[in-house]
């Protein structure tokens, strides 16, 4: 699993500065990866199963609403990246922001993936986004 996240996050290049590489690979990438996947899953569950099913809200299912959640998810993913790197006290480098941005993009992807997988179970949003 660490290998998977390492592969995923090093798609944008190896961690900088290089001296922080062990911390990134062993701690930060798995943490951020799992947190982001968990966050995306939670957001998808909230959108599709809480709002659009359990709470019976039938008017929060348009494309723009889904996009709102998508964007919030990406923003939170960005902050997850910043939060984890600062709590691990890695050396300050612009790489932190690149990684967080990349994590936001991954957050977009996870949200989309979970949406597609789970939208069927939603009462009011089973055809959102398509």
């Amino acid at each position: 699993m660490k290998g998977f996240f390492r592969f995923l996050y090093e798609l944008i290049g190896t961690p900088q500065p290089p001296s922080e590489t062990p911390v990134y690979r062993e701690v930060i990438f798995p943490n951020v990866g799992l947190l982001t996947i968990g966050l995306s899953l939670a957001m998808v569950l909230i959108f599709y199963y809480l709002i659009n099913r359990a709470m019976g809200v039938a008017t929060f299912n348009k494309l723009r609403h889904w996009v709102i959640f998508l964007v919030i998810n990406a923003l939170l993913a960005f902050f997850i990246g910043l939060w984890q790197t600062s709590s691990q006290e890695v050396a300050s480098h612009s790489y932190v922001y690149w990684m967080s941005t990349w994590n936001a993009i991954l957050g977009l992807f996870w949200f989309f993936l979970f949406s597609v997988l789970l939208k069927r179970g939603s009462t009011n949003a089973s055809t959102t986004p398509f």
Partner: protein
Amino acid sequence: MHLTRSFPLLPALALGVLLSGCYSRSDMKGENRAAEPAVTETVPPAETPGAAAPTETPAAEAAAAPAGTGPLAQVNVFLEVSGSMEGFMPKTGADAANTRFQQHVAQFLSEVNRSSAARKTYFRIKEKPYRDSYQQLSQTVRGGIQQPASSTDIPTVLDTLVTGYYAPNSVSVLISDFIYSPKNAGAIPYISTDITDALNRTRRADLAVSVYGYASDFRGTYYPALKSGPKKITGCCDTAVPYYFWVIGPADAVRRFDAAQLEKQPAQQAHFGVKYPAPPTSLLSRFQNVGAWYYGEKDASKRTAGASYHTVAISKVSAKEPVEFVVGLDLQALPGLYRDLNYLKANLQLQAQDTDAKIVSVFGASDQTKNSSGAENQYTHFVKVRVTKLGAGARPVQLVLRDQRPAWVSQWTTKNDSNINQTGAKTFALSSLLDGVEAVAGGEQKAPVFTIPLTLQPAD
């Protein structure tokens, strides 16, 4: 107990000194001193560990602790009181100025006396040791030698110390000018051999000697070593004259004694046979690091406090993008010689294969490093290494501090001290003396002071 027993025997001793000729410095006043068999009962040999019954220190500390912790069991201080030493300890004249020797040795005696060693014994050594109390010896230092010996034979003294005053967890400190006067010119080449034989007569496997060199002003009569020139120079000297502390004992005790008592005063140092534990060291990934490398240890990411790292995982290295890493060394347990930047720069070596790692610089801790929040604040010295080429696979690299004869020894050695005022502060045949010591203590291997194993590997 011992003191009371020795007092009434002093006259006997004095007689023995007058009569002895064992420690021959045959040019000294022509006095012949009869050899007096060592009044061994007055001067008990160094306590065997089990027999000692001192009340001050617990028995546990008397036993030689293998790792060398805790106070020593016994410290024996031998002050050479031959005539040549009188110049260091002139009787206080009207101007009441003392020599640096007096200042230093008096202070040293006081510190030893206050130290945590279980037993401290003090001796004046002529042809044989004469037991004194602390006050008596201290008085000798301050007030001058009462009955100087005519000559002392260095090998004999060393033999006595190694034979009779050698015990685990104990040291003997010999304070002398170590001017070895050979009988004739033919004996000069054998000086080192004599020393070796003397030290080796009683085979002590863990014998170690630390040599500390000082210089002091000298007021009195100087007796040059060689007979060929003037036998003595009165009203000497315009220049400082060297004197030495030789700390003799088991390697571990010597090390501890050195660290406790002899690091306070700057000195020229040479150490033979003393073994030092590996100092705490670590790579520092956030201190002056250059290039694409990181800690190669598997648990490097945990960043536990106080962890040390010795593996460099290099992801990319080339001549254009070299890798530079700094190894921090905490050398505060080592004696001053091995903490001296000049010595370190000359003697730190990197042994590496299939990579061109080399030491770029050696520098000491500064206020900045001491006050920083990073790991570098715990290290006293830093070694920066640069690598521009690395083969496939992990390879070991050793950072080694060689144990070399320090430069000052040759500077303080002279072949002829007849014209001491012109020669300057030097001692006759010092190098040979130390060659003799080196042959016994330390051996031929000349093991390095410490070896720090590192590993360079390509990053995965």
